[in-house]
């Protein structure tokens, strides 16, 4: 449930792509009042759907997720009156999040320079695929194409096949999350020094500067070492007990293992009930276990074959071996740890009905919570917000509505 830590701050969310929208949603989870400004026809992500006909509300699953807790205001930014209203909204906000192509805000008359003159405390957060500068700044993108340019994709997959992306839209989520962290840090500076700021977040750069990328890139720059696609069993830096590295089938699904090093061998032998192997001269050091890995792998696999993921997960915890069950989304929602911690949060969407959404990424012990609201209907809060923040009355709103400006 959202925490009321940042509840004095108003976020104006102009974003129309996942990363910025998720950044704004995350700020809402920690108390910000998030006002989502959409075109009169609705944010494109309402229809961006992995399964176009799946939603009773007409909104995509993605939209439900990344807009929960926000207020929706419709506004036609192509009309001068719409832009005048935006101007006032910007002046009354603390944070502005946008995902337009670099220069687009400026073309509407809202370059950061002039915004910061009228609202010097504003923190403007721009999240774009390649940032505000550089030769590729105007490139269009999807998760796949920007992920490809980060260095993360080329090593993902098997050597004799095409490189493959991760499962989730990680580049956009990760950079949106990073944008949120930087935005809140900028809030601290605002509180201490009264200064606003403009953040230039590039999705490519976030992913290229991702801890795994920089960690795996350093051996190249230090020594020319390449980081290419490898067979998972053999992909190891140092000895990793290769007979038990990677993903294995078991009785009811798959388990992933990553035993780091020789110290794991006694634990594994004990776990599979084969302590006799510890004194077997074929396996008594890491190099021998590597050269005889197929034999050991067969022993390991036969132990896995008779056991369920749950049984194995309990056994690895008992034995101190890093291993974990691969769960499907429905199984994740039933997992006892997440249930016990009440992680998934129920919201009641007026058109969709009750939906469980992912909960808090972290929990604050000293801050009160408030209920999470579902993603807003299109323009649900137009009147409420424009009356309160812009001072419009019913007649003005009716007129704007007739002219399809709101």
């Amino acid at each position, binding site marked *: 449930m959202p925490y009321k*830590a940042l509840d*004095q701050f108003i976020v104006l969310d102009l974003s129309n792509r996942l990363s910025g929208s998720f950044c704004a949603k*995350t700020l809402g989870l920690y108390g910000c009042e998030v006002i989502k400004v959409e075109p009169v026809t609705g944010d494109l992500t309402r229809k*961006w759907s*992995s*399964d176009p006909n799946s939603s009773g509300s007409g909104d995509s*699953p*993605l939209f439900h997720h990344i807009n929960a807790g926000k207020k929706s205001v419709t506004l036609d930014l192509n009309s001068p009156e719409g832009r005048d209203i935006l101007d006032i909204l910007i002046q009354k906000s603390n944070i502005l999040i946008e995902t337009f192509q670099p220069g687009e805000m400026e073309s509407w008359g809202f370059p950061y320079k002039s915004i910061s003159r009228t609202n010097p405390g504003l923190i403007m957060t721009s999240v774009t695929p390649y*940032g505000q*500068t550089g030769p590729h700044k105007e490139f269009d*993108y999807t998760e*796949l*194409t*920007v992920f*490809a*340019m980060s*260095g*993360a994709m080329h090593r*993902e*997959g098997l050597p004799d*096949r*095409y490189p493959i992306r991760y*499962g989730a839209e990680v580049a956009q*989520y*990760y950079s949106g*999350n990073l944008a949120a962290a930087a935005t809140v*840090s900028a809030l*601290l500076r605002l509180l201490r*020094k009264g200064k606003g700021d403009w*953040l230039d977040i590039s999705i490519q*750069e976030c992913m290229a500067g*991702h*801890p795994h990328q920089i*960690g795996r890139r*350093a*051996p190249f720059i*230090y*020594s020319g070492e390449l980081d290419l696609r490898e067979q998972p069993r053999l992909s190891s*830096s140092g000895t990793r007990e290769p007979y038990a590295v990677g*993903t*294995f*089938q078991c009785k009811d699904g798959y388990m992933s293992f*990553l035993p*780091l*090093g020789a110290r794991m061998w006694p634990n594994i032998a004990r776990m599979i009930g084969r302590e006799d192997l510890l004194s077997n001269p074929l396996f008594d050091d890491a190099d021998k276990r590597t050269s005889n890995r197929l034999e050991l792998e067969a022993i390991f696999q036969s132990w896995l074959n008779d056991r369920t993921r749950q049984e194995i997960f309990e056994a690895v915890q008992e034995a*101190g071996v*890093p291993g*974990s*069950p*691969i769960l*499907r*989304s429905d199984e994740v929602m039933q997992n006892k*740890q*997440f249930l*016990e*911690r009440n992680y*998934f949060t129920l919201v009641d969407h007026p058109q969709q009905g009750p939906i469980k*959404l992912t909960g808090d990424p*972290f929990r604050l012990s*000293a801050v009160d919570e408030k209920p999470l609201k579902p993603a807003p209907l299109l323009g649900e809060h137009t009147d409420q917000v424009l009356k309160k923040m812009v001072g419009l009355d019913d007649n003005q709103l009716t007129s704007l509505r007739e002219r399809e400006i709101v």
Partner: protein
Amino acid sequence: MNLYPTDDLPLSGIRALELSEIWAGPYCGCLLSDMGAEVIKIESIQRIARGPINPPPDGMYPERDPGERPWDRQANFNSTNRNKKGLTLDLKTNLGAEAFKDLVKVSDIVFCNYARTVMEGFNLGYEEVKKINPDIIYMLMPGYGNTGPYKDYRSMGMAIDAITGHSYLRGYPDMDHTNNSLVHHPDAAAAVNATLALSTALVHRELTGEGQFIDMSQAESFMTHMGEMFVEYQISGAPRERRGNRHPAYAPQGAYKCEGEDNWIAISVTNDDQWFSFCEVIGKSLKKDPRFSTVANRLKNHDDLDAIITAWTVARDKYTVMYKLQNKGIPAGAVLNCGPDTYADPHLNDREFFQIVEHPEAGIFPMSGPVLRFESTHGITIHNPSPTLGQHNNYILEEILGYSKEKINLMEEKEVIGIIPLPGADLGGSRRASEEQARQSNAKFNNDENV
């Protein structure tokens, strides 16, 4: 050279004590220090936590040479601890614990990504630390959080990837999961959420004067990066399956082979307008081909379409193809490898993503830069080298804590601090302990992995 005052960054004036290793905790420390916080990374000379050192994966060292102090030349460590200060302390000793407590008095944040009970084991858990500094912000970030049946489960990125449903979605759709890769993203998700958590708590403290304990679950923080998958399941009743590089509403989408060895281009055609533009580029006759006339048809005949696209890309340069398509407004990106390709990428270079860093033990190299760019610093980022082991012992003990030379000498004598691992120290990485040690006390050695 810094072109702006470093005391005017978002987190300038904040001091954080970091106890962590590998990815999630260290990268959180990087982000805090990139934004101006003074991050003191606390290590020890009893147990070296700097990633694989011995046996040396040779490429981990500059010019493949571990040198006399391999722990100071380790690529992984040196790339994920920039901008921090390094302190060694043996927290098991009174002198070490005392120094830690003295630091707590003058710090804002303590964060730890070891298992939940490690700090308690040193008698430095939140309850204890709060007595010394009631306003402290204290975060523990074990794999599954600080409560619940899994609270003491050891975990790594691999485990979180599997249990959150992400591994299930990875890999080639026509193969089983045993081919899944071993590169796991959740550490990074945890690092950014940890940074957000600490900055949120700092703002809260600024407004109310209150410090607090933060309960962070690496798994729960990563699941927010897949939220739509759970909504999709509830609405459709069908759990999401693997998609490979394809997309349910964009077609064609995929990675296509280009000229040269292991070169690829990623292409996404997201609507009909882009499809027609795409046809203009690769072959106008495709426009009239009924197999590809609508998204639905292109999805149905995706394999045929892939073959046609590959025939066009295979003899072309990946960047040339990318520019050609981007000029027509079609999302395309060269599949850059992590090393030479990203180093050569004109865009990353134009933004000065790589910075020349002079490290006292590793030498001078262009390292990957910080990514958070603020207008207040003209988008310029600072990249000071990662600390060598105990590099800032004197600065921290003398200048921050005001310890006397005698006291510091005593700490050195008693091996509470130092800059070289003790003989027989646990060097970390894949040979953290000998097999004999491991046999004798395996439980003891398994208590420290929430990385």
